[in-house]
C-alpha cells in the first residue's frame, strides 16, 4: 500500500493541473487515472480555446477562475512547453439583435475584469480576420484568449509533477474508498493507497466518485459536443477563434485555428445521460460545417479529416457553475465538480483554488527544489532546415520519418513512449507527437508505430491498443 499526503482522482486537465500545483509543496502526492493515459477522457474532446472569461456569469466561481486561469497560460506554456498561442476570440454579430447580445456579453465581461474586451466594428473586424464572412457587422473582441491542446497541457503538468516527486498511476480506476483514522484507504485497479486528503477531479464521474465516500450531494449530467477537424494547409489561416453569438448554455459552434495549423469546428451541445457517450451524428456534422461555413465561407467540406466528440460535466443543481469545495460529509475530501467549459482556461486557477482550500486546514510549505520547467518532445516538422540537420546529426532516428502527413520521426515517438507516464497506445503516441493525426489518419504509419510500441514496451504486436481497454487493432489469430 502506498501512503501519501494527497491523492488526486482523475488525470484530466483539472486533476493534472492540481497535481502539478501540489508538487510545488513539501508533501507527497499521487494521481490515479482510470483510463490508460492522461488527458484521454473529456479533456481530449475539446476545441482547445483558452477563453478570456467574458461569458461566465458575473459573480460565479467560474467567472473568477476563468479570467484568472486564462491570464496564467502564457507563463505556464513557457514553463511547461505545451502548445499555446495567444489568439483573440471574436464573437461575431450578423444583425442588430446579435449586437445587443454581444453588448450584454461586453458588460458581463467588463464586470469579470476581462482585459482589453471591446466591441469592434466591421473595418477593424476584417482587418483582424480577413477570412470572415462579409455579412458580419461587428464582433466582441477578447484579446486575452488563446488556443492550446488541452491533453498536452494535462500531459505536461503530469510529467512536470513526476519530475517534482509526484506519483502517477494509469489504468487505476478507483472502486472503493474507506474512511480510516487520519485519512482514507483507496482501492483501485492498481492496488491500495492511503491518503490523508483526496481531491476528486473525475470529470463526468465526479458524482460517482463522491458517492464512494457517501457524499450524495451531486448529480452530473453530460453536455455532449461533436467537433470537426479541417485539414491544415488548405490555405486558410485564421487569426482568431470565431464564435457565433451564444445561445443558452453554450458558446456555440466556433471556428477555431488550432495550434498545429488545422481548423477545429466545435462544438454541438446536446444533453446526454450516458457518461461514456462517444457518438456523433450526421446532423451534428452538418450543423458544425454549416456554422463554420457561415463564419468562413471559403471552407470546404472535402477538407474535413476527422470528427470527434467530448462531454462536459454539468452539475445540475449549480446553475452551470463549477463546484469546488470540501465535502460536507467527508472531511479532507475535496470535490471539483462540474468543471465544464471553460475548464481548460480555468484549470491552472482551479488548481490554485483547490490547494488554497487545503491550506485552510494545514500548513503547506513550498519546496525549494521545485523545478517549474518541462521540456517538450521536439517537433521535427516545425524545426528549421538547419535545426533538422542538427537533430539528425545528433540522433539518426530523427531521419526516420514514420508519419508522412504530419512529418513525425521515430525519435519523437521513442521520446513519447519513454517519458514518465509515456504513451502506451496508438492514440497515446498520436496525442504526444501528432503521428496519425493528419490526412491519412494513420493509414500508412499505424502498422509502423505498432511495431515500435510492441518493440519498446515488450508487448505482442497484436495486443497494441488503439486507445482504451479492448480497443484492439488486430485480433489474436494467425493469418490462415
Amino acid at each position, binding site marked *: 500500500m502506498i501512503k501519501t499526503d494527497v491523492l488526486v482522482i482523475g488525470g484530466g486537465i483539472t486533476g493534472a493541473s492540481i497535481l502539478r500545483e501540489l508538487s510545488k509543496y513539501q508533501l507527497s502526492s499521487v494521481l490515479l487515472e482510470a483510463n490508460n493515459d492522461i488527458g484521454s477522457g473529456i479533456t481530449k474532446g475539446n476545441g482547445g480555446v483558452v477563453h478570456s472569461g467574458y461569458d461566465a456569469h458575473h459573480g460565479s466561481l467560474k467567472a473568477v477562475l476563468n479570467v484568472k486561469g486564462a491570464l496564467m497560460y502564457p507563463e505556464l506554456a513557457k514553463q511547461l512547453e505545451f502548445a499555446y498561442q495567444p489568439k483573440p476570440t471574436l464573437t461575431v454579430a450578423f444583425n442588430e439583435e446579435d449586437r445587443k447580445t454581444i453588448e450584454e456579453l461586453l458588460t458581463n465581461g467588463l464586470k469579470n475584469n476581462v482585459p482589453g474586451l471591446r466591441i469592434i466594428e466591421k473595418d477593424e473586424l476584417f482587418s483582424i480576420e480577413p477570412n470572415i464572412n462579409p455579412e458580419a457587422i461587428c464582433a466582441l473582441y477578447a484579446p486575452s484568449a488563446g488556443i492550446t491542446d488541452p491533453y498536452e497541457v494535462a500531459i505536461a503538468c503530469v510529467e512536470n509533477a513526476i519530475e517534482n516527486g509526484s506519483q502517477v498511476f494509469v489504468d487505476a480506476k478507483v472502486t472503493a474508498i474507506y474512511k480510516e483514522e487520519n485519512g482514507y484507504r483507496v482501492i483501485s485497479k492498481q492496488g491500495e493507497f492511503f491518503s490523508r486528503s483526496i481531491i476528486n477531479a473525475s470529470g463526468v464521474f465526479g458524482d460517482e466518485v463522491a458517492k464512494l465516500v457517501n457524499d450524495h450531494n451531486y448529480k452530473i449530467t453530460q453536455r455532449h459536443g461533436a467537433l470537426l477537424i479541417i485539414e491544415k494547409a488548405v490555405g486558410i489561416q485564421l487569426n482568431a477563434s470565431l464564435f457565433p453569438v451564444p445561445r443558452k448554455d453554450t458558446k456555440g459552434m466556433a471556428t477555431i485555428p488550432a495550434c498545429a495549423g488545422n481548423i477545429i469546428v466545435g462544438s454541438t451541445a446536446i444533453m446526454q445521460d450516458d457518461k461514456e457517450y*462517444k457518438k456523433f451524428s*450526421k446532423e451534428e456534422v452538418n450543423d458544425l460545417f454549416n456554422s463554420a461555413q457561415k463564419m468562413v465561407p471559403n471552407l470546404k467540406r472535402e477538407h474535413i479529416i476527422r470528427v*470527434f466528440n467530448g462531454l462536459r460535466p454539468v452539475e445540475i443543481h449549480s446553475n452551470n457553475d463549477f463546484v469546488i469545495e470540501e465535502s460536507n460529509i467527508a472531511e479532507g475530501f475535496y470535490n471539483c465538480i462540474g468543471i465544464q467549459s471553460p475548464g481548460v482556461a480555468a484549470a491552472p486557477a482551479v488548481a490554485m483554488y483547490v490547494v488554497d482550500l487545503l491550506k485552510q486546514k494545514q500548513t503547506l510549505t513550498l519546496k525549494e527544489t521545485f523545478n517549474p520547467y518541462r521540456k517538450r518532445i521536439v517537433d521535427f516538422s516545425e524545426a528549421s532546415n538547419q535545426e533538422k540537420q542538427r537533430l539528425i546529426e545528433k540522433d539518426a532516428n530523427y531521419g*526516420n520519418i514514420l508519419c508522412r*502527413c504530419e512529418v513525425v520521426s521515430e525519435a519523437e515517438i521513442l521520446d513519447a513512449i519513454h517519458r514518465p507516464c509515456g504513451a502506451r497506445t496508438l492514440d497515446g503516441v498520436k496525442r504526444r507527437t501528432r503521428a496519425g493525426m493528419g490526412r491519412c489518419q494513420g493509414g500508412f504509419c499505424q502498422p509502423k508505430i505498432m511495431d515500435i510500441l510492441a518493440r519498446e514496451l515488450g508487448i505482442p504486436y497484436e495486443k497494441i491498443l488503439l486507445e482504451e481497454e479492448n480497443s484492439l487493432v488486430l485480433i489474436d*489469430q494467425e493469418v490462415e
Partner: protein
Amino acid sequence: MFDCVIIGAGPAGLSAAVSAYDQGVKNILVLERDVELGGILNQCIHNGFGLHRFNEELTGPEYAQKFIDLVKDHKITYQLNTMVLEMIQSDDYHEIIAVSKQHGYQHIHTKTIILAMGARERTRFMIQIPGSRPSGVLTAGTAQRYINIEGKMVGKKVVILGSGDIGLIMARRMSLVGAKVLRVVEIEPHSNGLTRNIVQCLDDYNIPLFLSHTVIEIHGNHRLEGVSIAKVDKDKRVIEGTQEYVACDTLLLSVGLIPENELSKTIQLDIDPATKGPIVNEYMETSVAGVFACGNVVHIHDLVDYVSMEAEKAGKSVAEYLTKSMAKTQVVQVEPQGLISYCVPQYVHQNTSLDTIDIMYRVKKVIKKATVLLEDERGEIIKKIPRLNMAPGEMEKIRITRKDLSVPINHITLRLIESEVA
C-alpha cells in the same frame, strides 16, 4: 548534380526510372520512403497485373519485380527509408531536401524531378460516417498491409464499404484468410470495380453485394461491434425504414483514393481540382519546367499497366527535356465538359514532339451508349468515337495525332453525348 531524381519507387517511379535510363539518362536517383522498392504492389499479392503491359497475369510483387530487376541491372541508384521533405526551385536546377536514418539530412541537386508519390486512401472521417470511434474500422489498404505484409489478422466478421477494386480484392482476401465477409456495401447503384473482380472476388465466394446501400452508423465504444446499413435513393439519401443492424468486428473502407500532392505544393505546382493531381501537358510535365509527374499522383488509375505506360512517357520526356528536344510552343487547353469528369493531360502543344497523344479521362456515371466528341474552339470535330458501357470506375482514353493539331487552335473540349440511358 543528378540528371533526374524520382520521388517514389512504386510502379510509377520504377517504370519512369527504367524508361529514362533506356532513353539515355544515366545519372538517376530514386528516393523511396518505405523499406523496399515496389510501393503498394508489394502488398497486392493477388494476380491480375500485367495483362496489358506484359500480356501475362502477374501478382503485384511479380509485376514490381520485373522493374526492380531492371533498376538493379542498370545499376540505377536508389535510397530506401528516405523521406523527401521539400522541393526548392532554382533557375537551372531543382533542389530536394530528403532525410533518412542511413544518409541523414541531404540537399540533393537535380536537373529534373519525376513525382511518383502515388495516392492515399480516403478515410472514414473524410466521408463522416456517423457513430462512435472504435478500433476495427480501417481502410482496405491498411488491412491489406496488416494481412499480407505483417501477417496479422484484422478481424473475423467483416463488412466492406465501397465496391471499388481494393474493396473487392480485400473481400476475397479476408475470406481466404479465414474471416467471414458478411457483405459489401456500395452507395452507388453500380460497382466501381472491374467486372472480373466482381465475379472472381464476390460471386465465387458467395459474398453479397448491396448496391445503393451505405453504412449509416458505427457502433461500439472500444472495438467495433456492428454497423447500421440502409438503402439510399438516387440522390443518396437514406430511405427510412430500410435500416438494418449488422453485427461485425471489422469495417473495411474502400471509398476512394486521393493523389498525394502535399510535397508538390512545396514547389507551387498547379493542381487540377478535378484530379487533385498536378496539371500536366502531353509530356507529363507539370507547371514547373523540369518537374514531371506520373501514376496515381497525377490521377487515379484503374490498372497498374496504365501507370507504367504513363510513367514510361514521363521517363522518355525527361530524356527529351535534357537534350532540349522537347517542342513546347502554342498551348492548346483540353477541357472536359458535361459527363466527363476530368482529362489528363490538361493541355497539349500544337507543335508537339509526339506523334500521338492519349488523352485519359473518366466519365461521371455509368453510360450505356454514347458518342465521345473532341472539338476545337470553332466547333470543328477533331474526333468522334461511339462508345458502349462506360463506367466511372474505368479509365477511358481518346487518341489524337499531331495532324489533329495542325490547324491553329487554342482550346479543345471533350464531351459526350449519351444516346441510350443506362
